Structures are given as C-alpha cells and as structure tokens.
C-alpha cells in the first residue's frame, strides 16, 4: 500500500488536469454552500460572511410564521404536482404512438416538429404565451369571439395561472420528453412482439402488454427524479409569467427568494438565504427519501 502522497505524486498529471475544474467546483459550488451560513446570521455587507453576528434560527422562524408561508409553500407544491402529473403521461403516449409508425419519413417529420419547441428560450416562450393570450388581439381570444364568447383576460386570472404554466410547458416539451422512452422502446426484444403476433395479439394488446411494461423502469426513474425536484419548478418561467394580478397563485419559493434578496427596495440577504436554504434542504431529503423508498420496493433507484 502506498501512502496518499505517493499516490498523488504518481497521478500528478491527471491531478493537474483536474485542478481547474476542482477549483471551479470549490469556488462556485461549495463556497456558496459555506456562504449559506448567513441564513443563521444577521448579514451586514461591511462585516462580510464570517464577521456578521450569529442569530440562530430567527429568520427561519420568521418565514414559517409569516403570513405568506403557507400560501407560497402551497403554490410551490401545487404547481409542482400539477406539472408532474399532467406532464408525465404525454411523452409516454407519444413514444408508444411513434413506435408503431412504419413510415420512416412520417416518423422523422413528427419527431423533428415536436422536438423543436424545446429550444425556444424561456423569455421567448413567455412572449409567445402573452401574445397568444392577449385580451385584445391574441389568437385565443379572437378564436373565442368567433364563437360569440367574450374575450378573457387570461393572465389576470389567478385561477388560470397554473394551467397556463403547465400546459404551455407540455406543448414545449412533450416531444423532447419522449426521446428517452423511444430509446427504451427500441431496446425491447423484437422476439416478444413476434411471439405475441403468433399468439394472435393485435397492436393494441402488444402495446399494453409488451411496450408499456418495457418502458416502466425508465418511467419510474424519471418519476423519482421529478419528485426529488419537487421544489424546483421552472422558476424563470414563473417569474416572467407573474404579474400583480396573478401573484396570489404565482408566487413560489424561488420567486420569493429573488424578491426578498435582490429585487425589492429593502433587500434582506439573510432572510432570503434562509428561505432558499429551507428549500434546498427539503429538496435534498425528498430526493434521498424517494430513492430509499424506490430501493425498498426493488424498483429502479438512482444509486
């Protein structure tokens, strides 16, 4: 057995290559974790992160007791679950459907078109949503007026915010989301299908009894991943879709942190960090717990 110093020396060239990335990780990923201690301090810029005074859990208590806490937590989890449940089946459906298309050209075309919106930037996407839903000249309202329905000011209705967010996201990402399922379907042994055909199974039955079970493991993994990211929703898109009229349902933890910490007149770094830290910790435990449960049920797990 060689000593650590000898081992380091032996692999010094690889260590040298890794040096820059290591510095990057320590500075830009780990130093902010260290800096998160200001959640427990009364951060004063001139005193710096270390020099500021400890105050314990005051800011956490303040957040939990604040009038906004339950509303924001509810919005975050509600939007997340809605997104998760509504968004989950569509890519699977598309993949199953594409898998039975024999005409290669048609298949390629459908893929090309449905993948494309994924690359639209979030700002442009929100721009498109706002143009489409515009109460005066928006396409949707003009369509409604054709049927004699009065125009609706969609973005001003708090009750519609979550649906606008979720369904535009499905529109944008259904194609991209199906790629991984298509790969899983391609890996299914064709002999299974041949045997099923011999037994007189039609396409519907083969889809139900062969394809669907075949992609279940990967679907489970993705579901686990998404539940673990329950508190991380498309924060930029939520922020951009927000307006004073829909704030009641559109304020989530991330947007609140941004406002408390950076975008208000009275910024409070410590308070905002405490809220963000609360989210990070909940997220971490969710991911670990979900992975543990999945393991117990002998399902696919991440590690």
């Amino acid at each position: 057995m060689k000593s650590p110093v000898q081992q380091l020396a032996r692999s010094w060239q690889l260590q040298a290559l890794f040096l820059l990335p290591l510095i990057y990780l320590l500075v830009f990923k780990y130093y902010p974790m260290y800096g998160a201690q200001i959640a427990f301090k009364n951060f004063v810029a001139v005193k710096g992160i270390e020099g500021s005074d400890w105050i314990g859990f005051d800011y956490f208590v303040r957040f939990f007791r604040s009038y906004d806490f339950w509303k924001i937590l509810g919005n975050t989890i509600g939007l997340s679950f809605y997104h998760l449940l509504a968004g989950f089946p569509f890519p699977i459906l598309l993949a199953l459907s594409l898998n039975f298309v024999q005409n290669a050209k048609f298949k390629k075309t459908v893929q090309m078109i449905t993948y494309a919106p994924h690359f639209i930037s979030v700002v442009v996407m929100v721009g498109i949503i706002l143009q489409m839903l515009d109460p005066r000249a928006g396409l949707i309202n003009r369509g409604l007026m054709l049927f004699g329905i009065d125009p609706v000011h969609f973005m001003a209705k708090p009750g519609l915010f979550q649906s606008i967010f979720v369904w535009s996201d499905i529109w944008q990402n259904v194609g991209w989301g199906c790629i991984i399922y298509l790969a899983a379907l391609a890996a299914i042994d064709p002999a299974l299908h041949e045997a099923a055909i011999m037994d007189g199974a039609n396409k519907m039955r083969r889809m139900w009894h062969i394809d669907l079970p075949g992609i279940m493991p990967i679907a489970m993994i993705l579901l686990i991943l998404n539940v673990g990211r329950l508190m991380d929703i498309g924060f930029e898109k939520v922020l951009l879709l927000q307006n004073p009229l829909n704030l009641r349902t559109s304020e989530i933890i991330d947007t609140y942190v941004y406002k408390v910490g950076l975008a208000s007149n009275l910024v409070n770094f410590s308070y905002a960090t405490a809220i963000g830290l609360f989210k990070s910790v909940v997220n971490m435990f969710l991911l670990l717990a979900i992975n543990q449960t999945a393991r117990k049920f002998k399902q696919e797990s991440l590690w």
Partner: protein
Amino acid sequence: MRADHARKVRLMDSDKAFDLVNHLFLLLLVLVVLYPLIYILSSSFSSKDAVVSGEVWLWPVDLSLEGYKAVFRNKMIMTGYANSFFYMFVGTALNIVMTILAAYPLSRKDFYLRNFYMFLVMFTMIFDGGLIPRYILVKDLGLLDTRWALIIPAALGVWQLIIARTYFRSTIPNELLEAAQIDGCNDFKFLGKIVVPLSAPIIAVIGLFYAVGHWNQFFNALIYLKNKDLYPLQLVLNTILVQNEVTTDMLADVTEMSQRQGLADLLKYSLIVVASAPVLAIYPFVQRHFVKGVMIGSLKG
C-alpha cells in the same frame, strides 16, 4: 384452418383501425405544435394593420417587412444580438475546455481520489448553496456588471460532464492508453493527441447543449448586469416582450396612436422570429446530435 384464417382477418382489421387512430393522433399533435409557430411567423410578415385588426389566421396578410425593419433599426436589439453571440462563443469554448479537463481524469480508473471527486460533483446535484450566497460570491469576486459574470460562474455543467465522462469510459480502450504509455506518452499528450481527436462527436454534442444554454440564458444576466451595453438578447427581449416596454425610437416612423399599437404588436412577432432564428436554423441539421446527448446522458453514471 378456417378459424385460424378468420382470426387473422380480425387481427388485421383491428390493426388497421389502430394504425388509423394512431396516425390521426400524431397528425393532430403535429398541428397543435406547428400552428402557433406558423401563426407567429405569418404575423411577423404581415402589415401592422392586419395584425392589430386580427386578420391573420394562418398565412401572412398584406405581406410586409415593417416589423423586421423596426427590429433591425433598434440599437438595443442589435447590441443584444452581438452580445449574445459573444457570450455564446466565448462561454462555450470555456465550457468545452473545462468539461474535458474534468471528465477525462474522472473517466480513468487509476485516477487517485477519483471517487471522492466524483462525490464532490454529484453532491452539487442534490444540494445547492442558493441564489443569494452565489450572488454575494460573484459580487465579492468583482464580476458584477462585467461580461465574465455570465461566463465564469457557468463554466462547467455537471450534466455535460457526466455525458463526456461516460463517453470517454466507453470509447477509449484501455489498451490504447497502455500502448501509448509504453511508447513514453504522458497523460497530457494522450489527452491532447488521442482522446480529444477521438471524441469529436461528443465534443460537438456537449458544445451544442452549452451553446443553446448560453443563447437562451436570461436569469444570470438579470441579476448580474446593470449596464445596458452588456445585455444579452434575452434580457432585451424581456424588456420588450414581457415587460411590454416598447420605446418610442422603435416606432419612429409612426405618429398615430392606433398605428403605434399595431407596430408594437408586429414588432413583437418579428422579434420572436429573429431571436429564435439562430437556434432553429441550425436545429434540423444537428437534431440527431441532441438526441444522442440525451441517450448518453440517460445511462447510469
């Protein structure tokens, strides 16, 4: 024999129905995805009167380039465009170098402390220091309100790192390394002369992902930049498309109020097209690379 035949016929009938429904479903989906895009494209090529009075449904009405003229006349948009190209090229170049430097050692079994480093990488995926500590760091480093604020903090993506590492591990045979070592080749030379040239496909894939990421990046610019001359396109778009602040110099030619509203709307459609054009123009040619990236990324690390 006859029963068997009848069963086959029944089977073919039900499969035909399935195919029909299946194709109709896909066709419907394509329409749903495509229609808004066509509508935006058509609106952007219409006249402002047609847009404001809602005459556009599918094809351009009164074909005109007014909207595009307004876009290209605007200095802020053009500066944003140039800035975004800068951030994209410089940022992606740095990303690729950093990703290779990180991924190659991590792909080597004889890399001392490899598991510890890998843990360092993976842990950043489950825990995050948060927005404010990151902001304080960027501020303390003096990067605030400089171009580097958009490049250095985003120098390395964990997801791309894992893709590259998986690729190196599965395509660079160990024998190659051993042979090179016998010939006196060190790790630096091996990486530069053999690994990188052999990995051109994966470098293209991660480069594309990084490039699109930089082009579409918006939030970092929002919090780190105050100087409007440094704004990337997405931040300019935010002002015009989302905050709805159409400045008067964009509408210079038009004086009448209703006309202005029309041009403001038209400008937005043209802007959406212009902003998405670079990515969507290369997209058909590189689509399979993106798909490949997703496939490799989905393999367990």
